[in-house]
Each structure stands twice: as C-alpha cells, then as structure tokens.
C-alpha cells in the first residue's frame, strides 16, 4: 500500500441555495478543490462521488456521470458511492484505496446533496431510506425518533440531561459563526435549544441537523508525488470502516458500535491514541449523536460525553475541540457532502487555514461519518504535512 495525501480541498456555501442546482454545487466545490491543489483538470485520473438521495429528491441518478461531465473531466472513470449519510466518507475511502493500491496517482472526491428542491416531508421520507425500511420506517419510525430513543436511553443510563444535549448545539453554532461556508452563522443559547419546538422527545428542532444544499470536494495524491510536487499536503494516516445491524432494535441504544470499531482500527493504523488527536469532525446529525461519537471515539469515557460537552471540553479552547466547522448541526448537512466536508475542515485545520476557528498547532485531525442510525461508520485520521 502506498501512502496518500490530501492536496486540495474546496466546498460550496452550505445552506438553502434556492438558485443553485446539483450541477452548480458540484462545479463550485470541485473547481475550488482543483484550484486549491494548483492542478490542471487533465492531471486528475479518476473521480469518486458521494450522494445519498438524489434519485428520490431530484429524480437524478447516475450522479457520478453528472459530476465528471459538469467538471469537464471526461473521460476519466467516475464512480458513485452510497452509504446513506456516510456516502461522502465512503467516497473518500474508496478514492484513497484507488491511490494507495497504485492504480491512480491523483484522484478527486466529491460529495453533494441538493435537498431543498423537495418538500420537507419528501426529504424526511428520503432520509428515512437510511434506516431499515421494513422494520423501522414502515412501522412509523423517523430518524429523529430513532435518535430520540438513543437519547432517552442515554439519559436514563448515564444521567445525561437535555441541557447537556443542548450544549452540543450551542457549541456547534458558536463555531459556525467563524465559518463563512456554514448554513447557520449565529450564536444560540441553551435556552434557545430547550425552548425550540419539540421534534421527538427529548430532541428539539435545535438538537437536529438541518436540511441543506451543498457540495464539497478534495483532491488526493500519492504522498511522494505530492511531496515532490511541492504541494501543500496533509497525510492520510488512517482509513477505517465498520458495519452494524441496519435496524436499531438489534443493538445497544447507548452507543454506535461501528464507531468504536472503526475508531480503534484507525488509531491502530495511525499508531496513535485518542489523546494525540488535535481536533475532530464527528457526525452530529443530532446532539445525542455527537455525545455518543465522542465517547465511542475514546475522547471521553462512556456516559461522560454529555457532562464534558456541558463543561466546555469540546469547545475550540477545550480539551478536544469537536466540530470546529459547526458540524452537521450548524455548518449544515447536505447528506452526501458531509463526509467529504469533514475532510475539508480537517485539512484546513492542519494547514492552519481555519480562520477564526483555528486550533493551534493541530497535528492530527480525525473525521467520523455515520450512515443511518449507526449501520455504517467511517473514520479517517489526517496528519499535518511537513512542508
């Protein structure tokens, strides 16, 4: 296996982008990434794209062909990856394999979702496809309901409170204020969250990530080539993925086991421990998801994630800054773009380009992307480059 580096990153603005199509979004993010890498389109050898629900939301399948065409990269091979909300993470991981294996030297990864052309009801139904249609969705469960079950159980077992859940959202909004690409660049308070409209008890609307339009892209390259080319690179030092049962009822409600398995494998690959991580972008589709993620990834003991969040340990100046981009909650969650956006944010942090939310001397950054209620988890660790 060859070593792989990220040499260019870019994204579109995330938000309710009424006047931008799926095509507009991928072009914007893709060109930003290629420009950031200081490469020509002709140097890209393959494309991997992540999208979850374009067929359901827009009637558009075959998105990889759309992306490669829109970016003017024909005739290079283009492949779409789908793993629900982890589609972006899977696209990055498979692109990584294609370079690590020696098949290609330079590959672009794109993630995109155009969600606001559909009604909220249609979007919620489409996202429901990430769960077990037969055992969960047809029985009336929605994603907020599934995560609410986890939140209730976590509260009962570990004494996690609604204030602790709310503190996750407050922190992510505070971070997003410093991210010009974020959907919600406004600070909120614990009371704002607690007083927001109930979605699925105990999750209020401000505990939930929004419906978002957006795209993100990264260019990866074989490490030695990146070094020789003098590019501003960060190294991919771990790529891990794990699966669990599709339906929630077959597993623990207070943890996402696939997160722990993928996380442990990633630390082993990188030869480091959670203590070495400078910042992490984790999958906070709901506030409880971030609490379970920071426990599963070993930053805090099981059951302590809520208190740690309330105590500010995950803030920009905390013990382990989490979701400096604003996370899914405040930066936005264009489903297929999210996993790739996490790589973009981690790269900016390691290159010292995260502006008002920069973590000092970031050495290792971790990204954590989850599909569904935890059936798929993808973890990557990136390391600051030497030049």
């Amino acid at each position: 296996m060859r070593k792989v580096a990220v040499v260019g990153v870019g994204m579109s603005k995330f938000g309710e982008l009424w006047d931008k199509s799926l095509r507009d979004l991928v072009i914007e993010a893709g060109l930003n990434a290629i420009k950031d890498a200081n490469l020509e389109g002709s140097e890209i050898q393959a494309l991997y794209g992540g999208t979850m629900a374009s067929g359901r939301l827009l009637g558009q399948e075959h998105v990889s062909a759309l992306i490669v065409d829109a970016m003017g990269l024909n005739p290079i091979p283009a492949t779409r990856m789908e793993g629900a909300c982890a589609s972006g993470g899977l696209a990055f991981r498979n692109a990584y394999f294609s370079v690590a294996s020696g098949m290609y030297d330079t590959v672009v990864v794109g993630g995109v979702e155009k969600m606001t052309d559909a009604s909220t009801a249609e979007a919620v139904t489409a996202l429901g496809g990430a769960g077990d249609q037969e055992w969960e969705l047809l029985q009336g469960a929605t994603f907020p309901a599934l995560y609410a079950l986890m939140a209730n159980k976590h509260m009962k077992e570990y004494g996690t409170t609604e204030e602790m859940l709310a503190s996750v959202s407050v922190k992510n909004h505070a971070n997003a204020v410093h991210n010009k690409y974020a959907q919600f660049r406004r600070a909120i308070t614990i009371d704002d969250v607690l007083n927001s409209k109930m979605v699925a008890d105990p999750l209020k609307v401000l505990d939930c990530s929004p419906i978002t339009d957006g795209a993100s892209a990264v260019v990866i390259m074989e490490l030695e080539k990146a070094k020789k080319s003098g590019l501003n690179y960060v190294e991919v030092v771990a790529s891990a993925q794990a699966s669990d049962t599709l339906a929630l009822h077959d597993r623990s409600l207070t943890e996402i086991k696939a997160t722990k398995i993928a996380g442990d494998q990633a630390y082993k690959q990188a030869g480091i421990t959670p203590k070495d991580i400078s910042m992490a972008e984790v999958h906070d589709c709901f506030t409880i998801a971030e609490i379970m993620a920071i426990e599963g990834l070993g930053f805090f003991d099981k059951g302590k994630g809520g208190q740690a969040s309330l105590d500010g340990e995950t803030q920009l100046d905390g013990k382990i800054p989490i979701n400096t981009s604003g996370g899914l909650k405040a930066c936005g969650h264009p489903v297929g773009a999210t996993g790739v956006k996490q790589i973009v944010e981690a790269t900016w942090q390691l290159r010292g380009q995260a502006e008002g939310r920069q973590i000092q001397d970031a050495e290792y950054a971790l990204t954590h992307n989850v599909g569904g209620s935890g059936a798929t988890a993808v973890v990557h660790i990136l390391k600051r480059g030497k030049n």
Partner: protein
Amino acid sequence: MKVGILGYGMDIPRYRIKAGEIARVWGEEEDRIVKGLGLSEKSVPGLDEDAATLAVQAARRAVKHANISGKLVNSIYVGSESHPYAVKPTATIVAESIGATPDLYIADHEFACKAGTASMINSYALIKAGEIDYGMGIGTDTSQGRPGDALEYSAGAGAAAFLMSNKDFIAEIKGIYSYATDTPDFWRREHAIYPSHGGRFTGVPGYFKHVAGGVAGMMKKMGTEPKDYDYAVFHQPNGKFPKQMAKQLGFTTEQINPGLVTPFIGNTYSAASMIGLGATLDIAKPGDKILMASFGSGAGSDAFHIEVTENIENNRNEYTFERITKNKKYLDYANYAKHRKKLIM
C-alpha cells in the same frame, strides 16, 4: 393626465378566530404560533359571505366616499384567488350592485395576492390613457388554508375597492411599477380546495425578492429613497414578513405601522396591501407620500407612489379601518369549520 384615488372602501367580516384556538385543535403551542407569525387572530367570513359579497360592500363604500353616482364608473376589475365562480365574473355582480352596468370595461383577475393591485393598475391605465373618467380596482378574498397547515392561522377574509379618477382625487397616484418572474412558491390547481406552497421557499425567493424588486424599481423610477416617504405599505401574509421587509429596505416601524393590518384581521390575500393602504389613508394628511407594494405568489409585486392631496381634509372616509373592525364576534374551531365549510359529510 393625472390619476388619483377619489374614494376607497374596505370590508372585513365581523367574525374572528384566535390563533390560540386553532393551535389548541392541532396540538401546537399558541405562543410559538403568535410569535412566529406575528398575528394573534384572523377574520372569518360569515355563512353567507364570499369574495363577491365582500367586494360589493367595499365597492359601495368606495362609491359613497367618492360621492359620485355608480353609473359614472366606467371600469371595474376584481382581483381574487377565491372568486365564487371558476367561470362567470365576480366583477359583473359588483357592477350591478353599484349601478355601473352596462357601459363599462370589466373583468376578473387572478395573480394570487397581487390580483387586487393589478386590477387597480388596469383601471388606472384606462384613465391615464384618456379612455374613461372613473375606474375601479378591487381586491377581495376569502382565502383558504388547509386544516392544520401553517396557512390556516393566517388565511383571512376581506376586500378593498379603490375608485380612481382624473380630478378631485384625495391622493394622486404619481407612479406605478411592476416586477414579476415565474417563481412557483404558492399555487392552487384547478379543482383543488386548498392551495399548496413551497414552505420556506415562499420567503426569500418569493415574497422578499419580489417585494424588494417592486419597491426598488418604484424608487428608481421616482428618484426617491425610503426616507422620502411618510408611510409604506407592503403585502402582509403574516405580521412578520412586512416588518422584516421594511427593515431590509430601510423603512422604519413608524412608516409601516398604520398600514400593518394583518396582525388584527389575518392575511386578506388580494386585499391585504390594499386594506393596508386604506388604513394608512384613514390617518394621512395632505402632502404625505405613501409607497405601496403588493405581492402575488407565482410571483410578482405591483408598486405605487402615492401623494395625498388637500382634498382629503374635506372628504374623510366614513368607514375607517378602525370603525369596520370594532364589532367582532369570536368563533370556536367547530363554528369556524362550519363557516369555512370544512366539514365534509
């Protein structure tokens, strides 16, 4: 040719339902609804009221205020999205009721909530062209909101009629401007009982873009800016949007408050900005400058630059907004459902 408003009339049903009563039925929190929409109650038509009866009453009041014979009215256009007939005009019913038939230009209009101001522009244009001396534009609606939908809290009922002339007017219409694109933010298909809407898409790409476009175009045409106006009236689908629009465009609360009527009567659709203009004229003084911009989904905005004349001092409207909204009767949801014919056996 100068054209202005000779008389105006408004009509609002006496029935009301509180937002809290609707919220109670649907398990919503009253405070959140009231704060979110900026309105606490809406008007509800009586059992025998519809867009035609409301238009008739408004037209009669306009003729009375203008103090002319209805026979002199040579054009009547009625804008509504709740015309009682799909085919057969509302305007002819109004024309007969004020004795204006048969010598007149007449038709119904539909452009969601801006059909009323489009009707004003039609009559304004005929007078401006020298074809007629007196013409009327009416906006009237008994608007529909699907039970449980956000629209149900705001969809009200009301009408406003503006009778225009080329002399003796109480306020001169010094300029008009219209702005439109094809933007499907809100619609009702044929045979559908209730309209559909694009949720949040009705906001920024619908209402805000088009009202801002109408206002900007009007001010550019007149060489004015917000501070040049004493009052501004914007379409008001709820109590919140017109305030946000004013802030965004640089108008003050004082400028829009007299014409902000939706918090008291709900959204009267085609009549909304016109009733707002009527309520503003109720208190306006000679020399006051008023900017009005309607909004119709689909989508567009008609803007008017209006200057109040000396004549208003000697000819105040008897049926002010304050007077016609004083006598209220509150309905519970069951009676409201009966009034709105929501019960289907």
